[in-house]
């Protein structure tokens, strides 16, 4: 490495310097579980307590690692970045929190076959409409994913990452070079609305939805955010992008196979009359989302147009027309109202699909709404 540089001792000097710097840093705990956390955070307290329990109590058997294969390099088999952690009662590094089921309308999942409707007889009678699953629009190429990128509660980008062959129409980078950690990366054009990264056999385009909708222009997101996102993605295999912190893949195709990463296992839409009055879709998720995941899902379903939202919100709005609420740990309703959104929300109700007509005319009482 150093043969290309002037100082033949450069690498050894850098190595020594780094170890000096590292040695000068004194970790607060020096590897020994302590009883007094340095920052008082619940997470630290929890972890230290767990470690102390293991070390002092000698209950190592609880966490003994059975059946591990240590014969190969760890690097080759470990994930690039950490997988999403389990829901926790304490904030993680991004301030994410688990959602308390007690704060939802229903603390348990709704019975199968439940639909959402607006219990307002001034509206046309509701009827079960088409099945609506997100993820049906994979993107512009066989290897293409739609992503929401979050920085805590803040949406950085709702966009597309697509890998295209070198001879496609999209392979026309003409913009200036950009530093994203990959040689040859450029903006897609002089407007700097998307970034093109060389990959094996082609190019990767990283950009917001608008670039693919309008065919150019921009920038449609903060330029620094676009560079950060492209830097994080780099040449990472496209099916591993969802492992990056803050990246939520909500639709796409990899190798030509459509994927549905949001984990929506079912979705039923109810329409009041013709399109234009009120439509509601009740989504069943595979797993309870965390607060940040809920915001990401909201941005995915509501086209990145969420009104101001904060970590911990279970009800989100967008543009005065859309309302999204997590009504049970795994049930999510999206209400689309062309008018009178607040009134529709007030009369949001739930019933078995088979009982929908009776519930709407008042002969069957739907489950009561819990007060927030």
């Amino acid at each position, binding site marked *: 490495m150093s043969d290309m540089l002037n100082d033949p001792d450069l690498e050894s000097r850098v190595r020594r*310097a780094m170890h000096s710097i590292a040695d*000068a840093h004194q970790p607060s705990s020096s*590897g020994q579980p302590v009883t007094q956390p340095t920052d008082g955070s619940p997470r630290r307290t929890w972890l230290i307590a767990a470690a102390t329990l293991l070390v002092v109590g000698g209950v190592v058997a609880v966490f003994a690692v059975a059946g591990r294969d*240590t014969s190969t390099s760890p690097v080759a088999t470990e994930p690039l970045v950490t997988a999403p952690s389990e829901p926790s009662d304490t904030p993680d590094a991004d301030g994410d929190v688990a959602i308390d089921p007690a704060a939802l309308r229903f603390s348990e999942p709704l019975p199968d076959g439940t639909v959402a409707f607006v219990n307002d007889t001034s509206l046309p009678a509701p009827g079960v409409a088409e099945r609506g699953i997100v993820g049906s629009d994979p993107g512009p190429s066989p290897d293409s994913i739609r992503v929401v990128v979050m920085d805590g509660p803040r949406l950085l980008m709702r966009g597309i990452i697509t890998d295209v062959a070198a001879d496609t129409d999209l392979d026309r980078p003409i913009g200036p070079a950009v530093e994203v950690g990959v040689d040859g990366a450029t903006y897609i054009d002089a407007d700097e609305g998307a970034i093109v990264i060389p990959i094996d056999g082609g190019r990767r385009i990283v950009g917001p939805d608008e670039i693919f909708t309008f065919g150019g222009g921009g920038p449609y997101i903060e330029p620094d955010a676009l560079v950060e996102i492209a830097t994080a993605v780099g040449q990472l295999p496209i099916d591993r992008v969802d492992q990056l912190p803050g990246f939520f893949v909500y639709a796409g195709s990899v190798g030509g196979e459509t994927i549905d990463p949001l984990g929506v296992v079912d979705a039923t839409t109810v329409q009041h009359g013709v399109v234009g009055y009120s439509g509601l879709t009740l989504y069943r998720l595979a797993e309870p989302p965390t607060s940040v995941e809920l915001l990401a899902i909201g941005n995915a379903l509501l086209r990145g147009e969420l009104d101001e939202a904060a970590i911990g919100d279970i009800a989100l709005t967008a543009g005065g027309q859309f309302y999204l609420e997590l009504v049970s740990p795994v049930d999510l309703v999206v209400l689309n109202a062309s008018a009178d959104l607040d009134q529709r929300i007030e009369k949001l109700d739930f019933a078995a699909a088979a009982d929908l007509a009776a519930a709407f005319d008042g002969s069957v009482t739907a489950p009561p709404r819990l007060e927030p």
Partner: protein
Amino acid sequence: MVNDGIESTTTRDDSFGAFYADRFAALSRLAFLLTGSSEAADEIAQEACEQVFRRWDDIDYPRAYARSAVISGSRSWGRRRTVRESAPSERARFAELDGDAIAVRVALADLPERQREVLVLRYYADLKVDDIAVEVGARPGTVKSLIHRGLARLQEELA
């Protein structure tokens, strides 16, 4: 070669408690090199250990997993931070560093994230280029390029 110990594997009978006691300091120092912040380093190392703890039964190589978590955590911290400069008390703590170390510390803080990562993984964690490529999600050729460019930047500071 000075090995920080992060690279070696863990035996089947190791407990998480032993892992924590053995690895926390090394993970914190790795995070410190990546962030330049002592406070952030401890928090990132703690978070990495927490993630290992939660997945202790599912992961085969907790040390490598923890290292990846530290890299990921350092990136997240870098996105959130608003102040790059260290606090005065931190600068004082490192006053005893020699000229090369001070120059490298300053240069690391100004390097692009990926260049900093590959340099730290190469010259502190002593990873091979192929392993760094896996760790940062880049091709080996890209890693070599990043190392070369990063070294060129460091050389300017060390001159």
